[in-house]
């Protein structure tokens, strides 16, 4: 059962990723990215990471992508104009991508298939919110506090950049 779910989620993730790169209108790309994030949330659930799956949907799918969609709708971003500047990119683009990804995959497969076990749903139940919380407030306390300062800086930056100019 978990292999069926993995295949569905993986095919959906790759399909939505391809759709993001190939579509010309930004809003189709944005919805494809939401599809990628949902498939990744399903994969996190298969890996036993229940808190991260829900945090992914709430933070990425519910806040970051809403921000993207707002900006696309407010700026009325149209479909991208096709530009014919580089013949090299049009012919060699995707083959070069394959040259990047295929040896990497082969390397991963040979490094990891000998020693590690397979992923089975339910064999690790340690991904709870309680475990994440315990580590966040003991071992990772300083990064946690620093990240809250980072969010504050980001809020201030966004407010300053987006405010109306005082003429």
């Amino acid at each position, binding site marked *: 059962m978990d292999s069926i779910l993995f295949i569905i989620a993986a095919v959906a993730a790759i399909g939505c990723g391809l759709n993001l790169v190939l579509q010309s209108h930004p809003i189709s790309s944005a919805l494809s990215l*939401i599809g990628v994030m949902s498939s990744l949330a399903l994969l996190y659930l298969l890996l036993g990471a*229940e808190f991260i799956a829900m945090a992914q949907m709430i933070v990425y799918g519910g806040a970051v992508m*809403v921000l993207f969609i707002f900006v696309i709708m407010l700026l009325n971003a149209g479909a991208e104009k096709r530009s014919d500047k580089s013949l090299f990119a049009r012919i060699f683009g995707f083959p070069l991508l394959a040259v990047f990804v295929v040896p990497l995959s082969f390397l991963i497969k040979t490094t990891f298939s000998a020693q590690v076990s397979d992923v089975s749903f339910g064999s690790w139940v340690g991904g709870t919110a309680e475990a994440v919380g315990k580590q966040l407030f003991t071992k990772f306390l300083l990064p946690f506090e620093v990240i809250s300062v980072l969010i504050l800086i980001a809020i201030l930056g966004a407010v300053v950049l987006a405010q109306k100019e005082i003429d």
Partner: protein
Amino acid sequence: MSFFIIVTLVKIAIVFGVFMTTLAYLQWVERKVLAHIQSRTGPLRVGPHGLLQPLADVFKLLTKEDLMPPHASKFFYLLAPFIAVSLALVSISIIPFGPVVDVPFFPGHKTPLGITDLNVGILFILAIGAISVYGIALAGWSSNNKYSLMGGLRSSAQMISYELPFTLVIISPLLLANELSFRGIVNSQADYYLNFIPRWSIFQMPFPQIFGFIIFMIAGFAETNRIPFDLPEAENELVAGFHTEYSSMKFACFFMAEYANMVTIACVATVLFLGGWHPLFPAPYSDWVPTAVFLGASFLLFAQGNKIGRKGDHITFPLFGLAALVLAGVFAVPMLQTYIVPIFWFAAKAGFLLFVYIWIRGTLPRFRYDQLMHFAWTFLFPCALINLLLTALMVALFPNQK
């Protein structure tokens, strides 16, 4: 197939059927209650006291012309009501309606009343609420209509602004219960202080969550785009907001999604703050409350049936009184009491909150958009934050309060 799967499928069928009927009749209740607040009578003609009005509305919506506006993005136009209604309907699946009971004809097995339970149930509800913003934003944008776009963007901005106090105020009863799953939260509200005050979250001792409950209801009104926060879909302001260009079944989808969100917020408030299925006073006496309520209702219906002068009332009121008597009898059978008394208490609390939704709709005027956003960011968010801080302080100072 395994027994667990069959029992779960039966539960899904029952919950889905009851939920869809509730959505249809919630619309009837809303029209009747609003009408009586406004000194008129509401639907009366279609069936006795308008009880078949939802059926007539479904026929009307099914047979309307299904048009698509010109130059609309077809895929997103059709996707938006699909997202809205499917996400709104899926959140009913993790809400617990009752305790773990024996399966009726199979003595060895037990099953919880409620479809399922997640370890991170609260986060699931928050995630569903966050994603259902897309249904509205896409509906507004894809209709190729400036009023729809403005309504959609305003509504989405309102929903994500009110998600902040909503999330913060949900954390406070979680601190008291020390659980993220819905069933765990309800189980932690089980006892009684001094043997008669229930240990619901709004009465729980290190810090009673009364302010949290009020903030939750206010943020819930804003999340579901109900009055007083329904400027984005108000009829005299923005034609009809984001669902202007939708007709027949697609409009019915948005309509169902709004009522389903209302029911979800009422159920989540019942589970988090009002103690779920636990009765108001301890067990042996509270099992007879449903019977008493239905006996009282039947008495009232029989007594009023002679007095009201409308045409068919001397037939319909005694019939309803008879139905209430049958229900009182059903609730008095001790074997069925373990199943349906918890569901009665849950439905009574959620029903009371839905009545408060409709009552406020009939009573308050609506906010202007900038007042609405100002209220969220400068008043409700600090209130939710202070509620969370005080709860955390009291829980840290007085742990394991019983």
